[in-house]
């Protein structure tokens, strides 16, 4: 049973906390994820987003897990955190995904770009105010003219029963 030790960290010093954990021997970054609490009925919510880092102390010789720590950072509406890419290189893609899905920005790293969605995507899909069936603006060639294929950027009309 995986029972990570839970810790809270301020958004301002998440980098210091995580770097300290790395120095204590937590050599594997298991996951970075975020939760948008804006639609949660919990009364004790202060900030909108909760960015969760999970780190693990893995002994390379025996393959045994020496303990995990889950660090929760509460961040507000326009959140910006310091990137931990310099501590664990695997954080690059995880932070890109958190930016893509939630709009939580990270500084101290090369320009953050979307990971899963295409660059022209508008909005951050996993936020609670992004409806699941939302349509995106159509993208196409800059000149605005349609490509040769008849199905390019054309929204097909629904069937009309006359």
């Amino acid at each position, binding site marked *: 049973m995986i029972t990570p030790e839970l810790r809270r960290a301020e958004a301002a010093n998440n980098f210091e906390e995580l770097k300290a954990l790395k120095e204590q021997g937590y050599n594997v970054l298991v996951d970075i994820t975020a939760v948008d609490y804006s639609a949660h009925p919990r009364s004790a919510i202060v900030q909108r987003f909760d960015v969760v880092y999970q780190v693990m102390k893995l002994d*390379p010789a025996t393959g045994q897990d020496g303990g995990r720590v889950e660090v929760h950072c509460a961040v507000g509406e326009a959140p910006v955190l310091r990137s931990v890419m310099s501590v664990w290189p695997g954080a690059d893609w995880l932070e890109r995904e958190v930016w893509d899905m939630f709009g939580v920005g990270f500084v101290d790293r090369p320009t953050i770009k979307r990971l899963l969605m295409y660059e022209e995507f508008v909005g951050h899909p996993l936020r609670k105010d992004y409806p699941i069936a939302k349509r995106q603006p159509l993208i196409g060639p800059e000149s605005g003219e349609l490509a040769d294929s008849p199905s390019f950027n054309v929204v097909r009309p629904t069937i009309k029963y006359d």
Partner: protein
Amino acid sequence: MGPAHPAMHGVVRLILELEGEKIVHTDVEIGYLHRAFEKHAEAETWNNVIPWTDRLNYVSPLINNVGYALAVEKLAGITIPERGQYLRVIASEISRVTDHLTCIGASAMELGAFTAFLYLIKAREYLYQLVDQLTGARITTSYTRVGGVKADMPEDFAEKCKTVFRQVREAVVDTDKLLTKNRIFMDRVDGTGAMSKEDALAYGITGPFLRSTGVPYDVRRAHPYLVYDRFDFEVPVGTKGDNFDRYLCRFAEIEQSLRIVEQCFVQMPKGKHSLEPKEMKDAFEYQDEGKHGDTALLAKYKAKVDQTLQGGQRGDRPDVLTQDPIFVMPAKEDAYGSIEGLMNHFELVMWSWGIKIPAGEAYSAVEGGNGELGFHVVSDGSDRPYRVRCRPPCLYIMAALPQLLKGSWVADVIPTFGSVNMIAGELDR
């Protein structure tokens, strides 16, 4: 190497910067198969998310089912009956074998070994037929439920498994003879795509990839879940961390998974096939007892109903589904026979009622085909998940791909990418 490429497993785009034939820099673009699993999971009830999890790692769907169900059960604080746990282990291990067979077969084919591919796909076909008998489908299995598994295994499943495993082992031995000491194969695969232990750990890589670099980390050993602590199996570990080591690790794991399933059949507690006939009463006797007030014994007996009652199953599978009425539907005999059963059924089925998992969050991981497959589940106390995060093991390996490919030849991309075993369904969700 664009999203549609015959050697790309699934859709992914590699933008390679070359100097002649040597790779200087790689850019990996993913997200072509993003189907919003996490967003949809927030809109579905707890059990309805399970078909979505099938589509994550679609070559080993049962492992995804098991991983998600374990995470939800951890949050709810329930454990399933022992026979159900053994069934989940059997399902996971068969899925793991199909995952490894697909990976080795496909990457061998890309190097030109078409026969090896066909041998392994034939073996995989037999396993899919087994999974079909167990769950009802080959890859869209949706086998687990919150609280157990969907149904018990068929009566002759153990014998069928014995036959199929013999065929799988034959195919594996044949492929081993074709590939492992094959000069062409070894020239392409030995020494290419090497990664050190420290780099793999820094990227968060787990699974056969990490084990090939020399770290014996396996979630089944480090955090035994279900009944894995009762089995005797080895965890194959490599030394150099190159493509050849990964190939050997996966091959060895196939044999270990088959061993685990055979031990399961020996250790599994007896199930529904050994129910005593005198515990069943006729439905009218059951009703009569209730009508004249003898309700004390109704919970002890199950009504024996006519075959034509749609969906009527004895006891609603008490060996494989936890009988907690908050999570699991009552037996049809109870739903039709007693008011408590009827209310229980209604409360689980009615819109916005259903299974209510207490508020909180939990993380639980299983050993997937590629590594630690984790599910971080957040609940707000309602009948739908608030947030389901799937930690895809191949995301970390793909993040490390630029470093893996730096300095190698273009031709080395093929075996390296094959041994990474990227499954787009899991990577992009």
